[in-house]
């Protein structure tokens, strides 16, 4: 493809792409995102290619490997266009039927459709499935329509139209005004108004300015940036180039987490293609504006998501945060003014330019506008990525979209904001989702992880888990974070082991306060949050651990015992065979007994016991009943007795 050197030629190129494509021709889109690949999407893609060829349809049917549409729970996800028929959990053996029935005969393969668990109704289209129906998908909706390795796909859906508009029809002030009108706030965690960052960098003195895409998505349990990087990298790139033109920068960097190889690959391809088309590099679209980007791989350090640490890492140094001010907008990468925004923030920019800032701001709450992508994970029926309007209630996200808690369990809390976020309890499920609302509830928006916890989750253990993570990830530069977190971790571990002491909670509070007040960067300042928020809402669980040596969630290994209820045991030998330490006594027709001294509390027997028997019980804070006497252990089948 020759370089496109005017907005007219861009439009012409788009029309050519569209004219080559027959809108009514069948297109099979298969999600090739990380979740679906793990479910075996590659085999499904291969099967489709082979089957389409076998049935002689290669010329007429398009097969697309797309990015993640979000419904990871039911992967691999296949959508057939133009009808938009959505098939879930597709296996290679389903492929011949889909091709002969749906593609050739235009018939629907009923068994692959979504079935509503409450009404038993089948949903043919994505938009009929409650998981999707209750979302507002402005950004992530494009993922299933395009193969991110093909720039033409992005152009076909109007890609780079916003860039063309910015370069030829708008002044930098106009763009800034639109971004300001949109009231877009940074999607990476802190929620700083984007226009203020942009304006700050733009007004900073100096010829050279840098732009950075923060793609160091490090929160465990969050993968929305990954889905955008893998599924629609051009949308991020387009946002970045728009930002560059507005701020007056000619050089940008992507800082990508090294654990995301597919994202690196797709991003690399996108950059190369954008250069070939003249959308990146010298004289973009013939406007005279130059902009280059480079991709840097992170080397595995959570703290590098913090902007000053990220900049040091980009400079080839250890990722240790530096004090602010000076802010990066004044003195950033190599001491030059630098504007850093998160992946999702950049991806919102083309949308704002196309639809207008006011339209963007029409969605949301007072302080938070637009939509936000969350990764809804943990103890939830529909795991996946969800894009919702700001201001939606947690209740709607968890029950209407997420389908509630699986296995008939009770909801306990939802953890938001990543390791430095907090837990929100059931009483607050009517909370509207927004930056300020979540902070007020003792948590935060963060980058958008939403981890659902049920009654089996111990809140003290959750706090211990996050503090453990942050202790590991503390860069070690300042004492309140490095040493304070270590001590907090020691105490929390002690509590979960039943060795908690009177006064531990107060000591934790002092350490938390110090880390909050005296740490240098956001990691240390917010690190005590998981402890503080669980204490705020679940103090009774802390008390039970410390005073009664009891874990109410029956989760802390050191505080529970396993016990076989003699009247429920069917002497089936399943648990006995599973026990790795031979701690179960019994035999055929002999009721089983756990020898407590030998038991390591691994829980294998608990899971092995068939649910219809449910003979194994977890106990905490109460003595284990003595084993039944040898003489009474002979198993008599109850039905025979009668």
């Amino acid at each position, binding site marked *: 493809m020759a370089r496109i050197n005017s907005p007219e030629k861009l439009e012409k190129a788009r029309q050519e792409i569209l004219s080559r494509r027959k809108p009514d021709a069948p297109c099979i889109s298969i999600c090739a995102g990380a979740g679906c690949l793990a479910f075996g999407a590659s085999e499904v893609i291969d099967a489709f290619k082979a089957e389409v060829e076998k049935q002689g349809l290669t010329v007429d049917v398009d097969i697309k490997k797309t990015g993640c549409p979000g419904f990871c729970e039911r992967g691999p996800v296949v959508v057939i266009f133009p009808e938009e028929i959505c098939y879930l959990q597709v296996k290679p053996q389903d492929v011949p039927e889909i091709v002969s029935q749906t593609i050739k005969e235009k018939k629907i393969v009923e068994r692959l459709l979504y079935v509503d668990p409450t009404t038993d109704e089948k949903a043919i289209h994505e938009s009929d499935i409650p998981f999707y129906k209750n979302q507002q998908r402005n950004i992530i909706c494009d993922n299933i329509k395009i193969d991110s390795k093909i720039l033409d796909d992005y152009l076909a859906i109007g890609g780079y139209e916003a860039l063309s508009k910015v370069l030829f029809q708008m002044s930098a002030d106009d763009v800034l005004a639109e971004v300001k009108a949109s009231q877009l706030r940074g999607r990476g965690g802190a929620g700083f108004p984007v226009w203020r960052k942009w304006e700050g960098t733009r007004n900073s003195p100096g010829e050279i300015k840098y732009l950075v895409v923060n793609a160091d998505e490090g929160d465990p349990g969050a*993968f929305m940036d990954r889905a955008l990087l893998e599924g629609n990298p051009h949308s991020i790139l387009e946002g970045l180039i728009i930002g560059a033109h507005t701020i007056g920068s000619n050089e940008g960097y992507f800082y990508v987490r090294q*654990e995301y190889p597919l994202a690196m690959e797709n991003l690399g391809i996108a950059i190369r293609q954008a250069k070939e088309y003249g959308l990146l590099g010298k004289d973009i679209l013939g406007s005279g504006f130059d902009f280059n980007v480079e991709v*840097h791989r992170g080397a*595995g350090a959570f703290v590098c998501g913090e902007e000053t640490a990220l900049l040091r890492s980009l400079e*080839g*140094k250890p990722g240790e945060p530096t004090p602010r001010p000076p802010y990066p907008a004044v003195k950033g990468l190599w001491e030059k003014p630098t504007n850093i925004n998160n992946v999702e923030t950049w991806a919102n920019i083309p949308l704002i330019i196309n639809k207008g800032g006011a339209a963007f701001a029409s969605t949301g709450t007072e302080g938070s506008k637009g939509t936000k992508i969350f990764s809804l994970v943990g103890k939830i029926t529909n795991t996946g990525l969800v894009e919702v309007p700001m201001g939606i209630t947690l209740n709607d996200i968890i029950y209407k979209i997420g389908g509630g808690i699986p296995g008939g369990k009770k909801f306990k809390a939802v953890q938001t904001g990543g390791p430095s976020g907090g837990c929100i309890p059931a009483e607050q499920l009517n909370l509207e989702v927004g930056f300020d609302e979540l902070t007020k509830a003792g948590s935060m928006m963060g980058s958008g*992880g939403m981890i659902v916890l049920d009654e089996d989750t111990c809140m003290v253990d959750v706090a211990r888990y996050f503090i453990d993570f942050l202790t590991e990830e503390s860069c070690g530069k300042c004492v309140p974070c490095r040493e304070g977190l270590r001590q907090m971790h020691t105490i929390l571990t002690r509590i979960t082991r039943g060795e908690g002491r009177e006064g531990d909670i107060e000591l934790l509070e002092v350490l938390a306060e110090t880390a909050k007040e005296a740490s240098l960067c956001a990691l240390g300042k917010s690190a005590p949050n998981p402890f503080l928020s669980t204490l705020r809402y679940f103090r009774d669980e802390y008390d039970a651990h410390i005073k009664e040596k009891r874990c109410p969630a029956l989760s802390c290994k050191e505080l529970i015992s396993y016990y076989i209820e003699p009247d429920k045991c069917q002497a089936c030998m399943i648990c006995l065979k599973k026990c790795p330490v031979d701690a179960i006594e019994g035999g055929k027709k002999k009721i089983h007994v756990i020898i407590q001294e030998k038991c390591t509390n691994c829980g294998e027997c608990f899971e092995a016991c068939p649910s219809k028997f449910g003979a194994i019980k977890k106990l905490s804070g109460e003595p284990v009943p003595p084993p039944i006497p040898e003489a009474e252990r002979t198993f008599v089948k109850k039905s025979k007795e009668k």
Partner: protein
Amino acid sequence: MDIERIDQIIDSHRGEASSLIQILLEIQRENGWLPREALDRVRERLQVPVSRIQHIVTFYKAFSLVPRGRHQVHICVGTACHVRGATRILDKVEEITGIKAGETDLDLKFSVETVGCVGCCALGPVLEVDGKTHGKITPTETAAVLKSYE
């Protein structure tokens, strides 16, 4: 790893000291770990003090200063996997391999590591061996998976 290849990598980054991390990452990826000779070469070519290289390779988790095992075992301990029982998978892996997370066994068979989040939370708990994902895994299945590797 031969010096020529290391030089090629350094040259592809125009020998700039600011590319130190990217250069080390490439050597790590190709060789599996960072031998002393490689670090010496990087130091010499980029003209950076050995203390800075040492700081970087110990600060970032992607680097290893010892040879890695033939099979890379990753246990996801991201939050979603944690609440779905990742600790028990980790316990099982440590029991079978006889090493702790972050270690490599003496036969160089397994290197065990915990990872933050691999991005397929729907499948949690997740075990990855040599890049192959084993989802919704139980401790018993973990044992079977590890035993299938030579």
